[in-house]
């Protein structure tokens, strides 16, 4: 496929070689240098594309090699263990795994109604106009704000509000915990699903929609029966993007989650996540098993992300095949 262009150029070159005029030989040289350039350009592209694959593989290999001491020392106990005790070298990732999954999925549940509403509103109701532009830019801005700022906002605004709520509910008023972390995360991940959703909603062919209208469907019926079924794989891909962001978010979460490696008893209890524990404890982890366990935590986070992505891709594929 890619070589289809070469024969033509060569034939042209041969034809030109027959005539001896200076002008034409310049042209020949030029066309050869063009061929050379094409080759260099192509191999540069391949090199850059491959380098991404190699970097991902290298990261994975580094994580595996560096976590070998902890894998050897702790084995499967690392996955199922519930204590994280750097003093006696007992490391269990279970509370962190649970914390990461609960905060991410809770955030997703909170954010999906918002991101879908925005996607449908901007894609279907107001695709053009100043209001739509304003909304679109503001939502993109949400994604551009550094996460530490969300953390600050969480600590100074959201935490006191949640604390008041907890006092009213009669729970120990920490203010920080899994619920607060999920709320912050929900705000942070809205733009990912919303932007992608808006694009796919706009791509629904107007012929389909007009057909439905002509059959007497109301706007809501068109959205429900035409737009959403047509756009669902795109909408789901947006959710997947959001989830990926939520799983790896570190700074904002660590500022409001309470950083206690316990199995959470309610959504208001403090918790801990994999990304937070790595960020928090890496600097002072001088013992070899300790350091290696933190790297194994990174490996676990890597694997969890890959698994969720693979499952997500499967689901998207099934949507598209239908």
């Amino acid at each position, binding site marked *: 496929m890619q070589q289809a262009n070469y024969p033509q150029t060569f034939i042209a070159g041969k034809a030109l070689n027959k005539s001896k005029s200076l002008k034409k030989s310049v042209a020949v040289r030029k066309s050869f240098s063009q061929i050379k350039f094409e080759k260099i350009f192509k191999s540069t592209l391949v090199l850059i594309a491959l380098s991404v694959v190699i970097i991902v593989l290298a990261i994975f290999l580094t994580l595996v090699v560096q976590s070998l001491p902890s894998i050897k020392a702790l084995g499967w106990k690392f996955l199922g263990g519930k204590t994280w005790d750097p003093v006696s070298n007992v490391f269990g990732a279970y509370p962190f795994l649970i914390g990461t999954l609960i905060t991410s999925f809770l955030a997703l549940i909170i954010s999906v109604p918002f991101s879908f509403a925005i996607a449908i509103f901007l894609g279907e109701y107001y695709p053009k106009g100043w209001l739509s532009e304003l909304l679109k830019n503001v939502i993109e801005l949400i994604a551009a704000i550094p996460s530490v700022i969300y953390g600050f906002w969480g600590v100074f605004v959201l935490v006191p509000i949640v604390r008041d709520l907890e006092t009213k509910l009669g729970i120990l008023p920490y203010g920080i915990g899994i619920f607060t972390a999920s709320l912050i995360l929900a705000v942070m991940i809205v733009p990912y699903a919303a932007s992608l959703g808006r694009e796919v909603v706009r791509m629904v062919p107007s012929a389909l929609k007009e057909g439905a209208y002509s059959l007497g469907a109301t706007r809501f019926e068109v959205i429900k029966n035409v737009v959403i079924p047509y756009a669902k794989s795109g909408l789901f891909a947006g959710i997947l993007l959001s989830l990926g962001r939520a799983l790896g978010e570190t700074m904002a979460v660590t500022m409001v989650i309470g950083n206690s490696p316990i199995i959470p008893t309610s959504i208001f209890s403090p918790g801990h996540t994999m990304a937070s524990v790595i960020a*928090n404890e890496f600097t002072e982890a001088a013992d070899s098993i300790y350091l290696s366990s933190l790297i194994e935590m990174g490996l676990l986070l890597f694997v969890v992300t890959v698994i969720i992505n693979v499952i997500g891709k499967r689901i998207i594929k099934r949507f598209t095949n239908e």
Partner: protein
Amino acid sequence: MKLFKNIKVAATFFLAASLLGSITTQAQGDDNTILGAGSTFVYPLFSKLFSVYHQKTKLQVNYQSIGSGGGILQLTNKTVDFGDSDAPLTDDQSKKMGADVLHIPMCAGAVSITYNLPGVNASLNFTPAVLANIFLGKIKTWNDASIVALNKGIKIPAFPIIIAHRTDGSGTTNIFTHYLSAVSPEWSSKVGSGGAVNWPAGLGGKGSEGVAGLIKQTPGTIGYVELAYAVQNKMPQAKIQNAKGQFVAPSVASTIAASNTKLPADSKAFIVNSATANAYPIAGFTWALIYKEQNYSNRSGARAQKLLQLLWWNIHEGQQYCQGLTYAPLSPSATKTAEAILKSATFNGKPILK
């Protein structure tokens, strides 16, 4: 075929790149720049000291405050000239160093117990047992009989106690947990001591500012931060009963009193729960770490000389800058011990300082 060739090209490229990378990390910079890494606890003092020293001698010191653990790791990998740690090396760490490492005390610091109790501005009194029981999660409310008995005349409200601790590994935690282990057998057996421990109760904040944030915001919270941090942020600080039975508030003077003890020859000692009069019990040293034999990785004799002179200056002239930054300068006996340790450093087996 074509793809295979491209992969080969890419592989060569990466091999070359990684080789280049490994060469650059081996380089140690020029001899007029000394590299250090480690404790964040001592960083404010070090940045002051090194900037003064630079003005005097034109020697650049590049100190990265990446945490004690990171400093130890970088010294093990020989990428820095000195590390700095808030705890002496453990056996495991010494073994990995592969050579003798000297601990030179730089200064001492105190850890303050601070709290947010609405309506209480006075400095509360704590005994070691009460403090340990609070952090073990056994005393759950502020108006517990044991706390009230220690603070007669102060009206203590009935708030639940929320504990705030450091979630990141830190020298501050190390000193505090060493103290709790020293005064409470239960803490020692259940939790132990270290830069990061398995806390029986409470919330974790990232960094001193994280803990301070938790305390300031949440009524009923108790936690610990470095003395300097508590002073700068005007946080209430508790008086702790020392081994002599006195209730002592954290200050530079009471930290000096705690550090004014006879140190072992290698200076590796914790000074928590001091029995000296007027000593604040939760205090500790921070140590600069260097290899005893300075001729390694093609380092020059001049470089070793400059490093030793810098550390010598730190424990003498440099000490005058401690008080202003709420660190405790070394006591005369600690300075003597540090001098002897510095003099034991060698280059090719010959002592560097005379």
